[in-house]
């Protein structure tokens, strides 16, 4: 069986590409880290891949605002290709910086002009911590087999989910476009630090209506194995294999 090919987009400042590559390899795909210059020069084409991932990092130093420069690069160089890609129902995933790119490029929560953003954390600084996440009911096939609450780490300065209007938030909720929501350990409403950045609706991740474009602030690629869970060293059970890994397996399974 041919392994699904996954393109992990890399630019100056991308820094989660290696572990994302490992995640897809563990999940049974054939990932490839590709520098954006190679796409610009036509050496690589995204249509040759079955999934496209924009990993975490500080693309172009997050100058102007997080992900902004990369958004312009993508719009100018790959805009039509990405429309065709998602039109063919191929998964498009953005993690952390990648999520910032997807919302600022108007690819989430729906394709069009930008309606939501990720602003500076309420704490006004970068924070790395583990959070509890409620897995929401939505169309995404990538949450298959998840319990209602899981744990993943976040690490960002600009992760506060904001909306341009109450109408947008309502449309997101009504359309079941929330992927992950920050919550308390027992799945209840989250306050800081459980909502680590002050996100509206405690939203930590979004999905498109068909469930195939997914963006999130948390880092599933840092929770691939039990040993990476803080509780694995704290006498708890950790989460066997890590739900991070299941997320990537679900993507690979969908492609197959």
């Amino acid at each position: 069986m041919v392994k699904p090919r996954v393109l992990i987009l890399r630019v100056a400042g991308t820094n989660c590409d290696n572990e994302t590559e490992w995640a897809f390899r563990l999940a049974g795909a054939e990932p490839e880290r590709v520098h954006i210059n190679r796409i610009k020069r036509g050496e690589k084409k995204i249509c040759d891949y079955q999934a496209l991932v924009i990993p975490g990092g500080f693309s172009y130093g997050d100058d102007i605002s997080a992900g902004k420069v990369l958004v312009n690069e993508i719009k100018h160089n790959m805009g039509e290709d990405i429309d065709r890609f998602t039109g063919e129902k191929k998964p498009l995933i953005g993690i952390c910086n990648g999520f910032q790119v997807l919302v600022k490029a108007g690819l989430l929560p729906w394709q069009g002009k930008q309606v939501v953003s990720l602003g500076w954390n309420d704490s006004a600084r970068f924070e790395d911590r583990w959070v509890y996440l409620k897995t929401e009911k939505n169309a995404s096939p990538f949450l298959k087999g998840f319990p209602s609450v899981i744990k993943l780490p976040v690490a960002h300065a600009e992760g506060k989910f904001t909306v341009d209007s109450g109408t947008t938030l309502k449309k997101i909720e009504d359309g079941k476009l929330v992927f992950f929501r920050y919550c308390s350990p027992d799945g209840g409403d989250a306050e800081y630090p459980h909502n680590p950045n002050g996100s509206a609706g405690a939203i930590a991740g979004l999905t498109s209506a068909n469930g195939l474009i997914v963006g999130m602030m948390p880092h599933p690629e840092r929770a691939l194995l039990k040993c990476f869970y803080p509780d694995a060293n704290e006498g708890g059970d950790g989460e066997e294999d890590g739900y991070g890994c299941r997320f990537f397996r679900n993507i690979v399974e969908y492609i197959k």
Partner: protein
Amino acid sequence: MPEYALEMNIIGAGDKELLEISGKNLLALNLEEMKAVKKYFTGIGRNPTDCELETIAQTWSEHCCHKIFRSDINYTEKANGKIREEKINLLGEIRKVTEKLDSDFCVSVFKDNAGIVKFNDEYGIAFKVETHNHPSALEPYGGAGTGIGGVIRDILGAGRGAKPIMNTDVFCFGLPDADYKRLPEGVLHPRRIFRGVVSGVRDYGNRMGIPTANGAIVFDEGYQKNCLVFCGTVGIIPLKNVEKKVMEDDYIVVIGGKTGRDGIHGATFSSIQMDANVSTNVVQIGNPIVEKKMMDVLLTAADEGLYNFVTDCGAGGLSSAVGEMGSETGAEVMLEKVPLKYSELLPWEIWISESQERMVLSVPGKNLKKLLELFASEDVEAAIIGQFKKTGKLEIYYKNEAVCSLDMNFLHGGVPLRNLKAQFAFPGKAEYRKDADAKTTDWPARIMKLLTDINITSREAVITQYDHEVQAHTVLKPLAGMEHSGPSDAAVLKPLYGDYRGIAVGCGINPFYGRHDPYMMAGCCIEEALRNIVSAGADPGAAAILDNFCWGDVNDEENLGALARCVKGCRDFALKYKLPFISGKDSLNNFFVEEKTGVETSIPGTLLISAVGIVGDIRKTVSSSFKRGGNLLYICGKTRKEMGGSRYYAVFGIEGGEVSEPVPSKTLPMMRKLHCCIEVGMVKSCHDCSDGGFIIALSEMAAGGGRGAEVFLDRMISDDVSPEALLFSESQGRFIVEIDRTLQGDFEKAMGKNVSMIGSVAEDGEIKVFYGGEKLFSLSAEEAEKAWRSGLQW
């Protein structure tokens, strides 16, 4: 008529003029050194150019060539009315340890940009710790950021390129409540330095995508005028890439950032004292994304074996990098080919600028095209600036005009080493003074006060700003659990994606002990660094250490004497713990001269020991937090009345006392046994006793696990000392260990006489302490956690 080089009149200069030239040009060369320069140029019958003089000054700077550590010292030690004299060489003493231990764990020591030890049959671990003290005092954000940037390049420049996998950061700051009005001119407030330094490390480290997973922060008034910023990086390297050699006719290629006027005279400036008049021009300007881009391509080029040698462009800029690379062959450089940030730099400025994010490669002609194409493909600057030639000379041209022609032998071997004198007067054993105020009911309040002490309280506010998990290697994180409620002793990483073998990284630093005796401070720092990694699961038999000495004015014989005694401590204790030194660095002359009064203040003599050890299987890693009520608690090691320099004495204003004396002959065998117990999965939690003593360690374990404990102080191993000493003494060689009740027999059999069962973990969340058959006091784990987590929230 030379157009680009200025002739410096050295041949005709007398002593006074020589010193004037050195001072005016910020060369930091003393009279003896200037005379050696004069002699060389008199011999070849001409004056030097500005570029030549600058090259010599960079190469011979204390920062680059460590003259004090390489010189012979006549050391006099006075103790109990007796005087002992000996001749010692500081660097020699340190290297002796590694030579004597002759461990096959060491792969490359003291010769490269970082020390390298064996990870497995295929990979090595590279580790280097640098300081960036002077720049951080002047411009905290930029100074700390470029400090981290610099040590990352040391790892990229270790062997033929190691991949950075972790950063460590250790800071020493003045007290945060210092009075603004009483700060001397030219000194920034400790809080401002703290914020700037933390932000600088955060922004550079996070953008580089390297987890900052271990560190320490020390606050003491002695660092008010000179802060210390230690930056370390750990890397992984294929063993086949460790050896490197510049080949004749290789091309000199400079990669990464462009060259500007920033950081000129960084090397010479950091070799002398600070005062109010230092220009911030000497501080470099950092851009992490430029370095990240360079790193990505460089590691690809390393994989493909496109170059023979790589080194970083740090202190002294190109002059140091190319000068060192070409020391065995010779080098020819065309300065106009160096990519510049802006035009109109003078040739000597291009040559010694310390602009960041640059490295130098030695590339064989056959790979040149491929290498340049690779760098261009990701928009990273790479320029051929010359060639290594078998001339034995350093020849530099600017637009075809020779601006420098120096013999490599003179440049690297011509620095006159001094014969130094140093003395240390041993104060004799200070008397132990019982704390007259200690009342039995007072213990919980005292413990709470210690938990909020600025040198003990949680560093959560700093740690969470660092991305300590990027690259997905970090198994044991700096803080315990989902909620960060307790401390970890060390960071444990799993550097290879497909392998459960790991490393533990920890450190030891305690300038407070040094005030009593720098020799014992060295022993305690070495032991603490080792204890930290052992309690997380590292094998004490597969571990190595790094030394970083930061000292004050070493022209002062007593300061130098304290340094010499500290080095002797390093030598003796490292040998006894069988820990090879694999790399080290000294930063001397950390002192400040007040402009108005001329008053000179040196920092407290400070030693940082960093340790790295192998964890055979990271799934056996142990954290410090209590795991289950009913589990048994053991103390390993003996408690003595050793309160000198302790946090308890500092916080409650008690003077005197004896400083802790490590006992490697007992502790090392005990650590080996403990490691075996951890390796077979017998140990549920483990924490070493350090700052604040036994009760602080116990409280931290309780806070981390959200559980209490019941402990009986009389059961601690000791020679009948008071409850006060049992609770707060900082005796070395002690761990608190949690064991499943069913394994009691196995554990006691494995550990022998080294341990005593002192009680058990309590699910009810109360820490109950008994002594002499009675309850001495109790306090709740929740309160302890709250107190411990209250600090640094400004």
